[in-house]
């Protein structure tokens, strides 16, 4: 990843500031309480923290927003994960009779990780990403978002950038949270098209009839394929990558193409020849199937999700607004309506959000204890300059206001706004449900 001025060694100094001034605790609490419809929903939720030196603590739970805040501000976790809502308070799970402590509900989640595409991207590998391969995430979001909404009827999806090389989707509808393990794995399998490990060459096999879901997904892939695969990834340029593409085709087509490719070097034209040939073959053949060009497009572009992440009700997943310790980037919500414009390299790092707000020097050396107290001075000074209203507030209110002002002025602002919109939509649905119920019961 292109360098930002981020150094993991600064985390111990910056995290406390982040958690004190910028982390959106009240929205977070609002989210996880889900309108208070279920009692103890928040109290029975498991959180886990990764602390300094890779110390990992599970089964954290909290009774109130305040308790959550205080604990996080005390521990300054490098990473926060969210788990399931259990039958009892996770922090007390040892006191519960074995077998009685069960994970009851959790959002349906998806994790798309760029490393799962290493066999089909040439620009980067492993933890690296660039603007060329980021398109894969855009495609994944488009395809999955549509399917989860239109096919499965889910409405409240929160897409989040993981902070390094992937995206997560949190499906927060009530029906989704109540899904069983079997149901989750069925949904994940429905959405899976690329199958097979190291030992499988041809990972996508299409046969007649082509299910509407596949057609829809192909539609999305086709929009991006030319620019992404042919131009940026150059899959039909070098001999090596051409061979990989051709290995997905039957022998006779492969041979014919190799002959054509001796004279045609332009990748765009090469792809045209391939599709023409495959289509011809399909039309002439009496056999079913033969959608080889579509299979290629899907193998190179279709979302690869880890079924195991989605299947477990008790699976822990990185929390939105958590910091990614290796890159320093904040795990921010993605605006799906403008998904093509999302640029992971523009997502602020913890340092950047603090710089923007507090105007500290961008010299990394100012991360030490001295720098920290300088920061606090800055803060107090600029707050004094900004008395917005002369109303006398009690202490908690002014702390809240301070926090609101703080994050409004950082580049975190627009992401928190997205989160708010997401929460408002859920509240709206809940209100609709309550009205429906009371209509049925003819209450006034």
């Amino acid at each position: 990843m292109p360098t930002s001025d981020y150094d993991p060694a600064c985390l111990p100094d910056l995290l406390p500031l982040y958690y004190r001034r910028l982390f959106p605790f009240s929205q977070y609490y609002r989210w996880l309480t889900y309108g208070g419809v279920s009692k103890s929903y928040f109290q029975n939720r498991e959180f886990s923290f990764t602390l300094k030196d890779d110390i990992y603590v599970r089964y954290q739970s909290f009774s109130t927003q305040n308790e959550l805040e205080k604990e996080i501000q005390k521990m300054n976790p490098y990473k926060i994960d969210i788990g399931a809502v259990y039958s009892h308070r996770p922090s007390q799970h040892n006191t519960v009779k074995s077998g009685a402590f069960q994970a009851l509900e959790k959002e349906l989640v998806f994790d798309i990780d760029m490393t799962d595409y290493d066999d089909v991207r040439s620009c980067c590998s492993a933890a690296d990403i660039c603007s060329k391969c980021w398109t894969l995430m855009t495609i994944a979001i488009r395809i999955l978002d549509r399917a989860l909404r239109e096919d499965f009827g889910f409405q409240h999806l929160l897409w989040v950038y993981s902070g390094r090389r992937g995206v997560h989707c949190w499906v927060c509808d009530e029906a989704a949270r109540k899904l069983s393990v079997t149901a989750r794995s069925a949904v994940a399998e429905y959405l899976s098209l690329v199958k097979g490990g190291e030992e499988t060459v041809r990972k996508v096999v299409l046969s007649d009839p082509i299910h509407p879901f596949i057609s829809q997904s192909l539609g999305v892939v086709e929009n991006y394929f030319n620019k992404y695969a042919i131009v940026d990834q150059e899959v039909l340029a070098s001999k090596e990558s051409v061979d990989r593409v051709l290995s997905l085709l039957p022998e006779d087509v492969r041979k014919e193409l190799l002959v054509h490719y001796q004279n045609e070097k332009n990748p765009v034209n090469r792809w045209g020849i391939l599709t023409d040939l495959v289509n011809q073959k399909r039309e002439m053949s009496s056999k079913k199937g033969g959608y080889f060009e579509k299979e290629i497009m899907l193998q190179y572009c279709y979302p690869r999700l880890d079924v195991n992440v989605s299947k477990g009700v008790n699976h822990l997943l990185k929390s939105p607004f958590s910091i990614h310790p290796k890159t320093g980037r904040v795990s921010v919500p993605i605006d799906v309506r403008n998904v093509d414009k999302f640029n992971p390299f523009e997502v602020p790092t913890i340092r950047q959000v603090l710089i923007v707000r507090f105007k500290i020097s961008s010299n990394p050396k100012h991360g030490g204890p001295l720098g920290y107290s300088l920061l606090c001075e800055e803060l107090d000074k600029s707050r004094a300059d900004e008395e917005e209203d002369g109303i006398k507030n009690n202490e908690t209110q002014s702390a809240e206001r301070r926090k609101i002002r703080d994050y409004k002025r950082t580049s975190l602002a627009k992401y928190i706004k997205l989160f708010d919109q997401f929460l408002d939509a859920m509240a709206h649905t809940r209100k609709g449900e309550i009205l429906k119920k009371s209509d049925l019961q003819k209450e006034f």
Partner: protein
Amino acid sequence: MQFTRRTKKVALGANPELYGHCLQLYGQPPLESVSLVQFETFAVERLKLLKSVENLGVSYVKMSDDYQKKLSTELCSLNFPHRTSVEDKNQTGSTEYEKRRKDHISHFILRLAYCQTEDLRRWFIQQEMDLFRYRFSILSAKYKTEFLHRNNLKYDTISIEEKKTLKDELINSSYGISGATIAEQEFYRVPFQDALDLVRLRKVFLQAGYAYIPHQDIVTIVLNDFRTRLSKALALTARSLPAVQSDERLQPLLNHLSHAYVGQDYSFQKNIGKVSLEQIDPLSTTSFPLCMRQLHKALREQHHLRHGGRMQYGLFLKGVGLTLEQALQFWRAEFVKGKVDSEKFDKAYAYSIRHMFGKEGKRTDYTPYSCMKVILSNPPSQGDYHGCPFRHSDPELLKQKLQSYKISPGGLVQILDLVKGMHYQLACQKYFELTHSVEDAGFSLNHPNQYFTESQKLLGGGKELKKEVEPPQRGQEIAGSNAQSAPTQSPKVQALDKMGDLESFFLDE
């Protein structure tokens, strides 16, 4: 039965309503008294039936013609309700009634035996579902509808307008649906949570959270319902089990029943500490099944394995006899050669190895995976090396790999044929036979550790003649299969045709 503690009782004697349909969802337990002899007989016969279901499910593609024919034979010979009796309504005489009563009672008895652990429950549910699926599918449309009504499975049908709007999508979602079918058949709109099997395989059209199901496919929905109910019921049964087990007439039988299924699960390590780490490399080529050989090789080459691979291989090694200390040493030594330093290993991976040995978390002593489990669950994806190579590898790559292991071309053909026929365990058995240069493996492979034990036995000197009784289907299947396997001995006799004493029955594992 006396111990269900229900105060309501049904009048003894034939109750036509109770068994009015040949198929049922087993919602209500039987309320009559049953003699001990009948209790035992019913239970054992149903168990035989379910074991046949299991074997057929591995040897044949489920619901294929062969499968159906053989299952039909089983049902007849064991005296369970069967198709021929259904159609003939006059036959609700005592014979058909008796069969349905037996079906009902035997199911509930087996619930007692199979509710106790997760594994037992899973097995029981799987076989009962397969059995149900077959029996439902052979019903005529009329009886299917009757069944739905009797069991309150009311789903909305879609209007003609909606059918027209969705015509193309419906045609493209299911195999065998044409424009004509859409016009003729009813389509049901079912919440997707009730149609998971169809959703999972993408065999149905989904819109706004609803699955659109043609009448002909309604069996999948019913099955889902069946599974959910049975699962809940088993959990409930487990809770009232102590009361039942205290009845000393029943306790030995119930214990026998559940152990008969489990057989050898390799959870009890017989050879703890008898294998040294240096032996693993040579053993992997001589005595490991292909899946474990592949995992071992990948581990040595990559100095790493992902979670799925670590579980499958780690538990296998435990079954082979590695101690926890040996396992930790083994994995650490390999991982450290890669990108993981000793400290990170202790933090991140040691925990999960101890977990495997039951030393962490809820202290479950995990059992090594059986072939069924490896074949059917957690398929490998990009970067994985676990799974069953006969099931999960590309045939071309499998062929190359076996060639590199010096398998003869003739043997290779046999293996690939078995793979094509989806007889993965038989293919592995063939691999065993070829690598050990024997005509007949002499055992029915269903567990990787079994492969190892048998191999060691063979190589250790002297093949012991096992007192093994295999179900007749196995013998017939070998004789009839296309693969030119070495001629087997005459199909192993099933010594249990007659209702012999209980002990001899349970020796067949």
